[in-house]
């Protein structure tokens, strides 16, 4: 088990991503953040704070649960259903640029589900993908626009993002074996 990002590194990385977002979009006008449950939501809220510090403007922030859009739902004849949590997007995504935020980009299947879910809320101008860690092994043609850290991994390794809000500490851990 190795710590690949500590609290300082995560904080600096998120600040850097916030600056990249402002640079690429020439400000934050028309932007909105949508975090993928669970940890993507906390990362989105932190990015909203950074964006406010940089530009003084508030960026609307929402939470997306992708469970009902998963491509492995109902694939097995029987099995307990994954837990569904609430989606909270209290603004119209029509004609906005949406920054979709997740903790780890791996196969790309979660992102595919998130894109389908978002499109059911309206027609955004564009969707940009923000991830804290890109660990490779894509199974779908999906690429992140903002990457905190590129982390080469083996398939049998797992990447665990721990955040203060859910886990009591800020840390990214690379583990041998075990579930991702």
């Amino acid at each position, binding site marked *: 088990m190795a710590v690949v990002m500590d609290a300082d590194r995560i904080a600096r990385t998120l600040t850097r991503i916030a600056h990249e977002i402002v640079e690429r979009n020439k400000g934050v006008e028309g932007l909105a953040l949508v975090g993928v449950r669970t940890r993507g939501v906390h990362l989105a809220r932190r990015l909203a704070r950074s964006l406010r510090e940089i530009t003084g403007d508030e960026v609307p922030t929402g939470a997306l649960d992708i469970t*009902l*859009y998963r491509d492995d739902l109902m694939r097995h004849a029987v*099995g*307990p259903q994954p*837990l569904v949590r609430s989606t*909270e997007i209290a603004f119209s995504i029509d004609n906005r640029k949406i920054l979709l935020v997740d903790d780890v980009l791996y196969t790309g299947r979660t992102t595919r589900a998130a894109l389908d879910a978002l499109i*059911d*809320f309206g027609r955004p101008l564009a969707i940009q993908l923000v991830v804290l860690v890109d660990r490779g092994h894509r199974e779908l043609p999906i690429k992140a626009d903002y990457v905190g850290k590129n982390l080469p991994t083996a398939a049998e390794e797992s990447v665990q993002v721990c955040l203060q809000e859910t886990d009591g500490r800020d840390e990214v851990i690379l583990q041998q074996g075990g579930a991702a």
Partner: protein
Amino acid sequence: MSAPVTTRIDDTPAVTSLRRKDLLGIAELTPEEIALILDTAVAMKEIGSRPIKKVPALRGKTVVNLFFEPSTRTRTSFEIAEKRLSADTLNIAIATSSVVKGETLADTALNLEAMQPDMIVLRHASSGACHLLSRICRSAIINAGDGMHEHPTQALLDAFTIRERKQRLAGLKVAIVGDLLHSRVLRSNIHLLTKMGADVWVCGPPTLIPAGIGRFGVRATSVVDEAVADADVVMLLRIQLERMEGAYFPSLREYFTVFGMTEARLRRARPDVMIMHPGPMNRGVEIASEVADGPYSVILDQVANGVAVRMAVLYLLAGGAEHEAAA
């Protein structure tokens, strides 16, 4: 007995799946399973507020709505819930089915089964009809009301509506007034509310109070003012004339005079009392119009929440029973 009734969004609930193939009644459910259904329904309710009210969760699943008794609310509610989850739905009403030609319930069910549905939602006039199908069918059976036995999704939507307003179920005084004897809604609600720690009072004419109802952990009375006093929730039950095979009380007018819920009677309840009715209402019999349409009434919220609760049940049961998953 009490259970966590509010779950923070990041908390992992005590159970994450239903450990059963069918939903036959509330009696078999644990408080944790009830909390899971209610929490899942919170997420499902949001889907109804979207511009596109549909998620792909049950794509490719077939659900048969088999209704042997008239129903508008429950059947429509199940059908909307199934469609919002992208299931294929099939409605079979008794008047147009082979039942009128003399086919038995078991034969009807087995013939439907041969067409490979995944779930059957059953309403039937006989108590235990769902249990019978549960034993002979591979499909998941959801009880949409069986005789005078249970109507589990009604009790779940009632609990969801109460929890939405009061943020809890434990410790609330709930008065249920009306035709207790013939009501499956009452039986499901008693099981659910007592499991979740509510203080349940039931009230009706002595002829309509089932013998031994106190054994279910509720207090029974025929004095309506006693039941309503300081109640957080007053739930009215329909006088089910179609199930009555005798004279249980002199007249509907007299019933209204003694038990009908009027504004004057309601003053004894708590100032933030909720008025509930599972429908269909008999205005001027169990409930006065000014109460049904008044500010305390959540009767239409109940109908709206029914869709979300049924979506939660359909979704959770679609995974199958846990013991089968291990096999």
